[in-house]
């Protein structure tokens, strides 16, 4: 992963930038970096995710953004608390190689390596052709998702502070 784990919140984009809508995870990370500079740690994972759990600290709030195929309209956003529920291995979240996202999270759970909070934001995708462009509906979701990430991380921090008190 091409990011440094230093901030208390980490945003990870999963996907292949050259495979159409699969690029939406990395594109969202690009927007996060542009809008918030170093406020959040960020990273992009393009291939195998087996060692994903080495990317975070256990006291971090982590948000993972990935493409999804579920039959919903293109650009639809779906959110999932991966600490509360198990992600089904065949959940429709796409991986290009090796160990996929659902498996990587289950691996982290088994190894007791989950972070303080772990939210999956999945964006419905339609095209995955080599060197395809993002479809407009999917590209249009990026700003909405970044708004949501900011709000989500604020909520998680507030919740953590409340619990600490």
């Amino acid at each position: 992963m091409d990011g440094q784990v230093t901030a208390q919140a980490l945003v990870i984009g999963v996907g292949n930038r050259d495979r159409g809508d699969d690029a939406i995870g990395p594109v969202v990370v690009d927007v996060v970096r542009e809008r918030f500079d170093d406020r959040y740690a960020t990273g992009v994972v393009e291939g195998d995710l087996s060692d994903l759990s080495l990317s975070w600290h256990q006291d971090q709030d982590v948000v993972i953004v990935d493409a999804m195929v579920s039959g919903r309209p293109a650009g639809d956003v779906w959110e999932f608390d991966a600490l509360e529920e198990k992600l089904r291995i065949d959940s429709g979240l796409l991986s290009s190689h090796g160990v996929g996202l659902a498996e990587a999270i289950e691996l982290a759970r088994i190894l007791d390596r989950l972070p303080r909070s772990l939210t999956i934001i999945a964006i419905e995708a339609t095209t995955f052709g080599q060197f395809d462009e993002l479809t407009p509906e999917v590209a249009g979701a990026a700003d909405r998702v970044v708004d949501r990430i900011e709000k989500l991380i604020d909520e998680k921090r507030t919740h953590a502070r409340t619990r600490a008190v």
Partner: protein
Amino acid sequence: MTSENVDLHVPILARVEGEGAMHVQVSNGEVTDIRLEIYEPPRFFEALLRGRDYTEPADITARICGICPVAYQMSAVHAIERACGVAVGGEIRELRRLLYCGEWIQSHVLHIGFLHAPDFLGYESGIAIAADHPKMVESILTLKRTGNDIVDVLGGRPIHPVNIKLGGFYKAPSRAEMRSLREPLLQARETCVELIRWTAGFDFPDLQQDYEFVSLRHESEYPFNEGRIVSNKGLDIDASEFEQHSLEEHVAHSTALHSRLKDRGWYHVGPLARWANNFDLLSSDIQEFAAEVGIAPVENNPFKSIVVRGLETLHAIDESLRIVDGYAPPAKSFVDVPARAGVGWSATEAPRGMLYHRYEIDDEGIILAAQIIPPTAQNQPTIESDLRRFVEENLHLDHEELQLRCEQSIRNYDPCISCSTHFLTLTIDKS
């Protein structure tokens, strides 16, 4: 199912890179049909390269595979540099070897821990192994991460490196960046020894084949980027001669071409081939350790490839340490590669076997023709031969066991069918 009549069909192979299936048919006690079916659509990269600038293949071909992009980059740059009459040496050559070490560590460790070990231990997946062997799986993740770190330092990111160019690198790493790899590599070495001992303790199905092992051989180094193409049965050619000695055939059940050597037939590329052809070039430490864990200088049992992958990982770690310790940043991170009309060939050693590229370019550097022969295409007929032999010798096994071992036989080769998802849906027809 009886031992006389078997019809095994696995429509989607799990724990391989890409989309493939397996079909095995036995009638009256004889194997009548064996097919490793590759049905993933071809992506026409060679056609895509035609008309592009000669500087582009290093980035374009890297996108062929998310597991071995470095192999594609290295075969591409070496072939084009050869077309342009440029040879890269010194520190840049060392950095290219280090980059390849990183990819071998990433790929081999992923395959050993998550794709192949489950077959030997009776688990559905690497994730399932973690529940019973958490420390080992944590070690495997850390070891793989060391490979990621190497590719990240040299390539700018751990997957699909962006720092590679004709003649070298856009930017050479600093001494501090290289030094940062040292401690993780030392830890990785200990972990790797532990991993090798673990895999050497597995039960290996018995299968012996009289392979023609084909790999690179360099005069003084276990090969990554350079060397002649040799075999244990007398082949000894330059990369420029490879297409004169090989055939690519279309078969109805595969969207990947099948490779053969003219007048010689199917052949085997990958860790077992490199091991057999280059054992004498390994350090005495690794040779002795191999003997200790029961690996011979020539291994004809493909199921033992999992241990050989571990030993090659150990070599990659030692080689990385050597390069890191001796590193002095080059004055310039690349040599100039001016375009000139010509043809260039290169074979390098991808983790899963020899990867051949050929490019023809004009005097302005426009690519006129490109040819890529990946290792899995070369191994397909060999995999089918292994399946046939294994089924013939193991018809006494029950259906489930036979099917599992057949799938395991395919995974012995860590086939990289393409960049794709992998998952399992299984149907079995009984005659």
